[in-house]
């Protein structure tokens, strides 16, 4: 079973993102939304992206990042809310980290 993780908080403030990463599985997907967008600039994101052989899909809601003037990264997919809905049903369950 693969999981969709909705990350809504900044790792600069809370441990939610770190806790998410500790249970992450190889076929899982992450969507950064709300203040989770700030995690694009966090060291944890950097190490996640650099993980060798990682197959975790990392996504950010484009409007949420743009609203916060956060630059996105090449390794992160810019998506819309309808993609989040689609991801909801492409994975077997959803965990919200807030």
């Amino acid at each position, binding site marked *: 079973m693969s999981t969709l993780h909705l990350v809504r908080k900044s790792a600069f403030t809370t441990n939610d993102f770190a806790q998410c990463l500790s249970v992450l599985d190889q076929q899982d997907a992450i969507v950064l939304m709300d203040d989770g967008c700030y995690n694009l600039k966090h060291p944890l994101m950097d190490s996640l992206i650099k993980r060798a052989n990682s197959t975790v899909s990392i996504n950010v809601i484009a409007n*949420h990042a743009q609203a916060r003037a956060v630059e996105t990264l090449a390794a992160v997919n810019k998506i819309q*809310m309808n993609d*989040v*809905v*689609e991801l*909801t*049903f492409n994975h077997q*369950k959803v965990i*919200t980290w*807030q």
Partner: protein
Amino acid sequence: MKTLAVVVTTPPYSPLTVTALSYVETALTAGINVIGVFFYQDGAMHANENISIASDEYQAIAQWQRLQQQYQLPLHICITAAEKRGIACDSVDNEQINEAFTVSGLGELVELTTKAIRLVQF
């Protein structure tokens, strides 16, 4: 059949609720069967008829009401969470509760989770 249940834990005046609404509306537009939204913790504040948000700001309650009317989307308020937050739920014809919302209990959450293949929390 793609069935979805949603839990909302943020109040109507929170920007985080905008995201929840956007997700739910997007799902409904995509033809997903959203079988119900359960308002728990601060989400119970949505039932409060006395909430008055500046007219130039996002009107979350009106948006939920619109979805309820347009899609017959069931909106369930947790009674315990509501009462704790000063929303009187005791009488049948209750003026303190916005009519788009149904006063329910956690039992409704059990119902929703047994019927939905996906549960998403906001």
